[in-house]
């Protein structure tokens, strides 16, 4: 039974965490320098987001993540459809895809640094590289796992191979494609934030976290961490909402 209070249940965890945090600060469980109070942290967050450095870095990171996921989607979705539409073709590249999908993308930084130099290009391309493989894998499986009856139904009605691909396989693969996009965007964000911490970065959320830590501005550091968390959650939610809107049949 769904009670009317049920939609508010998630808030309990948030309030609980904040209470614990207050208690930890109050009883000085952790060195006060390392753990500022929630109030100080949220004040820093508010100040930073409203026209401060944090807001600027937030936008930069959103931009890089969006660009890398867009590049990844443009490459991976058509390629995944092509590979998925022929199981033999996919099997022949499966090992390569799985191998690089399992390779930590962060291990590719030095290589991409050599290729693209220090700057946005490297960050975005490493993130796109990681996301491409995740999306590709999901799209290909989405196409390969298209319901056989549905394909047969289209074929028996006289649909050509191309028609079956466009009218059936493509739509059949959409739910799985969105799984790939959500996983891909999470991975891209991780890679972007890590990249922003190192290799001569001057902006972005990763840089903000790192700089605040170096300067020992703890409220700012926590604020930047929460901003990154909110971004990750928000991106996931964004794709979920698009999916619900356009792939209304998913899971039904």
């Amino acid at each position, binding site marked *: 039974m769904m009670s009317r209070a049920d939609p508010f249940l998630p808030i309990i965890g948030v309030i609980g965490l904040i209470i614990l945090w207050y208690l930890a600060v109050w009883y000085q469980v952790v060195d006060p320098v390392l753990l500022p109070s929630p109030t100080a942290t949220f004040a820093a967050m508010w100040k930073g987001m409203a026209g401060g450095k944090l807001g600027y870095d937030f936008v930069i990171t959103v931009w890089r993540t969006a660009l890398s996921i867009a590049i990844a989607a443009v490459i991976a979705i058509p390629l995944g459809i092509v590979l998925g539409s022929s199981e033999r073709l996919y099997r022949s590249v499966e090992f390569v895809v799985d191998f690089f999908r399992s390779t930590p993308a962060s291990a590719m930084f030095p290589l991409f640094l050599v290729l693209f130099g220090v700057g946005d290009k490297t960050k975005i391309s490493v993130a796109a590289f990681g996301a491409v493989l995740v999306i590709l894998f999901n799209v290909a499986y989405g196409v390969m796992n298209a319901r056989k009856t549905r394909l047969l*139904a289209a074929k028996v009605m006289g649909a050509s191979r191309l028609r079956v691909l466009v009218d059936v396989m493509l739509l059949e693969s959409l739910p799985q494609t969105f799984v790939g996009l959500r996983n891909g965007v999470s991975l891209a964000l991780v890679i972007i934030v890590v990249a922003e911490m190192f290799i001569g970065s001057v902006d972005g959320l990763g840089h903000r976290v790192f700089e605040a830590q170096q300067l020992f501005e703890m409220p700012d550091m926590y604020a930047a961490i929460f901003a990154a968390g909110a971004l990750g959650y928000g991106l996931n939610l964004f794709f979920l909402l698009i999916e619900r809107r356009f792939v209304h*049949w998913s899971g039904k």
Partner: protein
Amino acid sequence: MERQAAAVRTTSARQPADVASQDGDRPHVTIRDLSKRFGDAVIYDRFDLDIPRGKLISIFGPNGCGKSTLINLIAGLIPLDEGEILFDGQRLDEIKFGYVFQNYREALFPWLRAFDNVAYPLKLMNVPRAERRARTERLVAHLGVKIDMNRYPYELSGGQQQLISIMRALVVEPEILFLDEPFSALDYEMTLFMREQLQRIFMETGTTTVLVSHDLEEAVYLADRILLLSRHPATVADFVHFDIARPRSDETLSDPEFVSIKAHCLEIFQREVRK
């Protein structure tokens, strides 16, 4: 449009009788020397069959004898190893036919509304949008279907979904309609309802219909002819006539002729199972 629908009804309702009187017993589908094997299992070995025009034929037989395989071969879902299947002398790609799957949930397109699901085969035939609309609306009106056609398949009941599948098969005005155990995924109440729907559709359109059934009562109740198959390699164990007038109803089930035909079919079925 109403007049058009009425015109369709009279011509199509009269058609089977006319054809029968003109052509005598000239078959609609002729199957000659059909052979099909799956691995080591020989399902059909030089199988011959004539399917009469404008009749509803039920196919019944032991499990795994190749009932569904037969209509899948006729409808081109799986290739023949050998032999020839002609539709009044024409090949499959020269005729219009409809096919209804057992698994309606996976056969319909969940991204299309019920209406667009029904209209989809017309899109494949490059029929202009306005005409697709008109023809689909005409079919819905003609069959008296009371389903909200703007809903998505997953919003409909199982029976309604299968009805949409059947309409999708009918919208092209097929010369022949195949149904592969169309009601076996439905509950009993819905099955009874759908039998009546199918009978009504058949009476309205007079389309040659081939129905695979695993329910003997259903197979006899709906059919003009019951094709009883043996275990594979399948042969025609019997091709029984059942000529009680339509519409048939619950009373048909206790009609002496129905009872005796059903008993006869069961006897042959038992004989084939024990072989």
